[in-house]
């Protein structure tokens, strides 16, 4: 187990390194931030001075070398546009995104697993079919379209919920959180629903198919034949069978929820890191983009690690890669 963890740690460091290189060179290829930011009337001397101050006058590998040297000391550089450390900028906004992603995940799982179970246990009933048809709708509609519909219906026509923003925040542990008050929940509902819809459909479908497969497996059939209570069959055997795909999805989706909250955040004016990323890409604020992606990779590999450990715990047939040294 320790060996396994150590290996994964080493791999993560490699991933971070490759990732930073790719993004650094990638953004460099997109364009020069000075084209957009330096005053049009600036002379060559002005531009050169700015470029030198920001290190943009150097060839890309020198820039990367400097970045790497600083990064090893924990300094991911200052945002070109904000003039403050990129990491600090992201951490300031991280709570907003975490709140959104966790809310969305909760909606997806707490609604998705019961609905999927129901549809899986009663595949031929009208309710089961309706749930499955509904899940098709869930991933058929593009997120941005659903978001706009939600705003139109719930904010503009009905006036029940706010159209965007995050509501008042309270400071806990040096970070600002909005879900500590009722107003925050009102604000998060629409964007979380919007973000959750696709994942909800996915969880329903995976749970349903897992349930159906489980019911046909020999041990469940055997248990049924033995006259075991249906509640116990579902509770123990079926749930256990569907946990692997569901955990994979939940784990994978949490990372992607964070990374892909870009669209929802920009529609609902949700001040999270997705929106920061989009703005930073638009303005070629490279330090922020690089820091953002490194952070996401870190979060993601950690989740992936947890998923793998859970896999092993749930299914004895799966052995952890580290324990299997060939």
């Amino acid at each position, binding site marked *: 187990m320790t060996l396994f963890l150590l290996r994964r740690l080493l791999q993560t460091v490699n991933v971070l390194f490759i990732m930073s290189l790719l993004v650094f060179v990638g953004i460099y290829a*997109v*364009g*020069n*931030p*000075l*084209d*957009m*930011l*330096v*005053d*049009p*009337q*600036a*002379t*060559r*001397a*002005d*531009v050169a*001075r*700015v470029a030198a*101050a*920001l290190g943009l006058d150097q060839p890309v590998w020198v820039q990367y070398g400097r970045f790497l040297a600083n990064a090893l000391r924990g300094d991911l550089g*200052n*945002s*070109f*546009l*904000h*003039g*403050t450390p990129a990491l600090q*900028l992201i951490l*300031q*906004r991280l709570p907003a995104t975490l709140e959104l992603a966790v809310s969305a995940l909760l909606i997806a799982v707490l609604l998705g697993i019961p609905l999927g179970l129901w549809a899986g246990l009663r595949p031929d009933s009208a309710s089961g079919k309706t749930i499955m048809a509904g899940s098709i709708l869930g991933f058929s509609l593009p997120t941005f379209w659903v978001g*706009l519909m939600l*705003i*139109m219906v719930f*904010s*503009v026509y009905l*006036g029940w919920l*706010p*159209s*965007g*923003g*995050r509501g008042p*925040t309270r400071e806990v542990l040096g970070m*600002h959180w909005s879900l500590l008050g009722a107003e925050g929940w009102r604000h998060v509902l629409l964007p979380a629903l919007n973000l959750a819809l696709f994942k909800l459909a996915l969880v329903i479908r995976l749970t349903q198919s897992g349930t159906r497969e489980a019911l046909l497996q020999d041990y469940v059939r055997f248990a049924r034949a033995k006259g075991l209570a249906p509640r116990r069959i579902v509770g123990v055997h079926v749930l256990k069978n569907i946990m692997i795909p569901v955990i994979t999805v939940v784990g994978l989706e949490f990372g992607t929820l964070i990374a892909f909250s870009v669209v929802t955040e*920009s*529609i*609902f*004016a949700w*001040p999270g890191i997705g*929106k*920061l990323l989009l*703005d930073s*890409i*638009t*303005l*070629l604020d490279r330090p922020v983009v690089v820091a953002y992606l490194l952070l996401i990779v870190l979060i993601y590999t950690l989740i992936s690690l947890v998923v793998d450990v859970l896999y092993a715990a749930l299914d004895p047939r799966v052995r952890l890669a580290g324990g299997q040294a060939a």
Partner: protein
Amino acid sequence: MPQHTSSPRRSPRLPRLLLGALLAGALLPAWAADLRIGLSSDVTSLDPHFVNIAPNIAFSDHIFDTLVKSDAKGKLVPGLAESWRALSPTTWEFKLRQGVVFSDGTPLTAEDVVFSLDRPATIQNSPGPFTSYTNQIVKKEAIDAHTVHLHTASAYGPLPLDLISIYVVSKKAAENATTEDFNTGKALIGTGPFKFAAFRKGESIEVTRNERHWGKRPEWDKVSFRILASGAPRLSALLAGDVDVIENVPAADLARLKTNSQVTLAQHTTWRTLFWQLDQFRDQSPFVTDHAGKPLDKNPLKDLRVRQAISKAINRQALVDRSLEGLAVPASNINAPGIFGYNDAIKVDAYDPEGARKLLAEAGYPDGFSLTIHGTNNRYINDEQVVQTVAQFLNRVGIRTKVDTQPVATYFGKARAHEYSFALLGWGSLAADFTLRSIAGTPNPDTGWGTWNWGKYSNPKVDELVAGALAAVEPAERERLAREAAGVALTDLAVIPSHHQLATWALRKGFAYDGRIDEFTFAHEIRSVR
């Protein structure tokens, strides 16, 4: 320890204060003078000298003042300087207003002004410094507490115009302050109509009225700005009553808003003028070919008749009515009407497809040619629509036109590297000689001429007139030269003008705003109406 940090010992008084505020609120509901504004772009830093981008400047104007200000129409008016004049071609005298104090109570002196003019050059790591407005000044002198002399290396007429961009900060508060100190409000001490209250980056900013402000007293006790970057949510925040005023109303929604009795609209022609830059330096332009896709033996865009044909082929009125939904007016100049140096002798080219075809035939292209035109898709009002519509018009006169639109992040870099043949640009400036220097001046990176002249248009006559205007310290003389330069450049179609954008604000019932040519949303110019 600065005076404005609150001491914890004061907290026992808080309940009483709160009670008082509650009572006042209950008794005087009609005067609860709070204003909530939905902004369309993010304010990245509160340091007024950090980065020269519009949202930051618009916010700075609430806290700080400049020596010279521009009014809603773009005319220069006294700010902290009561008057100014050129003592010699290279020396300017600015007389400061008497009795102005900062929000912390310290009086404004010439020292603060000199400090503020020095500060932009000391800011490290700014990607868009304000130094292009202070570079011309080689020496600054505080003659007495209320007189400043500024010396330039050579005669430089637009100095007062440059100074509308440099906000005057308190030397005492800002002397050792970092950009971060401005963001926390510690160094944010100005003479402007409001005082800093709170800043949540990317989310909201709050200010309260500065009772010590020298000028007109704003109506609002408290103003909060919310960053609502995308159009639909910004509008729905207004309709849902979450904000009172929004800027940059999405074009597609105007028709509906006009019929909404709960909302009033304010519109103003802005300085932002859109025009097409044409490759006028290559003999074979990369995106101009014959109909079979082979390069032509010469570049038709270099031929004045072809440029005239293109200009006549564009139905600007239809473009403005249809693609821009009335959010623009047809343009003949590269500056908006009323702006310094606007040449009203130049008229908007009438739509004349027949004449266009004739001119193309005369130039040797009776069957036209093939062209790809470029534009942005996230920068200007309906820019993607505008590019497509112009392509439609060009197709009708035989120029087979394709369209390529890109986000501004990739577009500007390529355009500035002169990669395009026919490309859309929007420009906002308060003086024609400035615009011409950047757009139509012969490119020279050392002097800052022609930095955005994507087509490398070059005309010695234009250069000479623009140089003359910039060196004229006498405003009337400068305006005459700028007008003449604009006339020469536009008759020669250095660029093909398209339209001047309008800016639109939407306000809830009970609020009024006149709008501004510079597109800024100023809380101190928003009024309540009954």
